[in-house]
C-alpha cells in the first residue's frame, strides 16, 4: 500500500493565491499590449478591401483605445469615427455612409468591395488567439 499525505496550510494557500493573482495580472497586461497591433493589422487588411473612389472612407479608418472590463479585453476599430473625413465629391462625412457601403453586396466597386471590415475581422479569428497565446506562453514561462 502506498499512502500519501498532503498538507496544505493557510499560508501556502495564500502564497498560491498571490501567485495566481500576479500571473493573471501579467497575462492581462500582455493582452492589453497586444490588442493595438492586432487592431492595426486588421485595419491594414481592411484597407486592401475598402472602396477608395474618393479616398474619404478609406482614410477614415482608425484603431481606437483598448477597452477592458472584468473579463473582456478588446479594441475599438472602424471607419468614420474620430478620424472622420469629408467626401470631396458629395460633401458627406464618411461616417454617414460607411455602414451602407459595407453592407451593400449588390453594389459594384472597381477598387474595393462590401464587407470590407467584417471579412478581416472574421479572418482574424484564425490568428488572433494564436498570437495572444504565444505572448501568454512567454509570460507563463518566466514566472
Amino acid at each position: 500500500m502506498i499512502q500519501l499525505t498532503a498538507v496544505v496550510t493557510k499560508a501556502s494557500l495564500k502564497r498560491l493565491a498571490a501567485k495566481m493573482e500576479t500571473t493573471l495580472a501579467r497575462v492581462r497586461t500582455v493582452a492589453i499590449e497586444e490588442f493595438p497591433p492586432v487592431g492595426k493589422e486588421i485595419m491594414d487588411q481592411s484597407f486592401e478591401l475598402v472602396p477608395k473612389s474618393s479616398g474619404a472612407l478609406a482614410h477614415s479608418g482608425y484603431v481606437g483605445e483598448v477597452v477592458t472590463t472584468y473579463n473582456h479585453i478588446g479594441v475599438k476599430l472602424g471607419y468614420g469615427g474620430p478620424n472622420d473625413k469629408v467626401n470631396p465629391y458629395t460633401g458627406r462625412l464618411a461616417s454617414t455612409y460607411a455602414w451602407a457601403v459595407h453592407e451593400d453586396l449588390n453594389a459594384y466597386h472597381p477598387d474595393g468591395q462590401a464587407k470590407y471590415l467584417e471579412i478581416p475581422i472574421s479572418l482574424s479569428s484564425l490568428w488572433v488567439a494564436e498570437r495572444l497565446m504565444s505572448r501568454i506562453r512567454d509570460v507563463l514561462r518566466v514566472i
Partner: protein
Amino acid sequence: MAILCDDIITFIVASGNGVVTAADTDIFRNVLPDSPDASVGVFEYLGITDEHSFLGNRSISIQIRRTSAEAARVAAWVIYNLLDVPRAREIWLTATRVGIIKARSTPAILRTDDTGRTIYVINVSVVTTRDE
C-alpha cells in the same frame, strides 16, 4: 446538395409567406436586379471553414426591397423570423440541406434608392456542409 443561396431561396419560397413568389422571379441569388420593385436578393460572402469537418460557418446577407419603407420593414421581419428561430436553430432548408441558422443582425434599412424604394438588409450565419 446544391448551392447554399439557392437552398435558402427554396426555403423562403416554400414557406409561402407571401414575401416572394418564385426563384428568379422576385428572389435572386447574388444580385438584387433593378426590377421588379418588390424583390429579394440572397448573397453569400466570406465565411469560416472548420478544419476538422466538412462544416463551415457561412455568411449570408439578404436584401429586401419594396416601394415603401413600411412594406420593406414588414417583409424583412417576415424573412428574419423565418430564418432566426431561437428555440429551433436547426432548419432543414431542403430535403438534403440542414443548417444551424442564427441572425447576426436584426433587419435594418440599407438605403433608399433614387426612385424612393427602400432596401432592408439582414445578415445571418449558417453552419452547414459544403456546396457541390
